[in-house]
């Protein structure tokens, strides 16, 4: 996965599984917003909300909206980020804030490192 957080609060997201693997529908890049939950001494915590769209497959013909919520800790000195993701899916026209209209969430953890020209 590639997660980009802009100074202006935008979040952009690309996933290696977008082609649709392990029986899941293919899905688009995701975009949305992030906010800082606190920072001190070069480390901090962020919350990210991402939205993308899935596409119909023979096995699962209904296109959906996907909402992903991240909470992650980062360390500027080491360049490491670790976090937890919650993925929810709902019919395409559902309000992404109405969590009760989404299916049961799936959780996973992630870790990674900040990209730069020198490490």
């Amino acid at each position, binding site marked *: 996965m590639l997660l980009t957080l802009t100074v202006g609060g935008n979040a952009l997201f690309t996933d290696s599984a977008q082609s649709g693997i392990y029986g899941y529908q293919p899905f688009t890049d*995701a*975009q949305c917003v992030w906010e800082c939950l606190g920072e001190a001494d070069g480390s901090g915590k962020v919350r990210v909300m991402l939205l993308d769209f899935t596409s119909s497959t023979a096995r699962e013909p209904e296109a959906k909206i996907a909402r992903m919520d991240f909470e992650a800790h980062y360390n500027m000195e080491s360049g490491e980020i670790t976090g937890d993701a919650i993925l929810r899916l709902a019919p395409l026209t559902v309000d992404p804030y*109405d969590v009760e209209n989404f299916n049961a969430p799936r959780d996973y953890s992630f870790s990674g490192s900040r990209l730069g020209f020198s490490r």
Partner: protein
Amino acid sequence: MSPPGFFGGGIGVWFDGRREMTRIFKLAAVLFASVTATSAATAQDDLDLSACIDAVGSYLLLRVEEDDGEERLGRMVLSLTNGGHAFLTDSAQVGLYGQQPFTGGGGAWKCIGAEDGFAAIKAVIIDFTFSTPHDPQAKIKRLDLEATYDARQDVFEGKAVVRHTPLSGNPFDAVQMEDGKDEFSVTGRRITVPD
């Protein structure tokens, strides 16, 4: 109930008294100013992005198109950065209704009018289409968006024009554009991180 601007909303649904009239008058003022500015000005005279700081953010948009009496819904996420970049993700990227599949889009936006919580913007967003048996030539797709964002009411409204050029063509050269264009309206609201 869904928040305003999400589904089936739009201009007609919004008329609810003096506050709405104020919104419409301000919108008209911003649009008049932006039209005046764009007709008389060169690119160097465009407003600084900071004048439209209220527009920086990400928006969940709804597109409603009619085709032979059939209503086609689509949703998009549009991100406008404070550096002037624009990014677009579309629920129709897989290639629906006989259209070619296409990638996420990237491009630029600019401020063409701003007043007291209203921002008028233009964006141009480029993506690439993929070959299909029905339409084997991959293309560049150019989407031009003119939109306003009312930060007080959290209403984003815009009109988009989509045109294509061959993959090796120049999407900024009108001569190289294919005949025909698609036009649609979008409406939506800004996305915030939930608590």
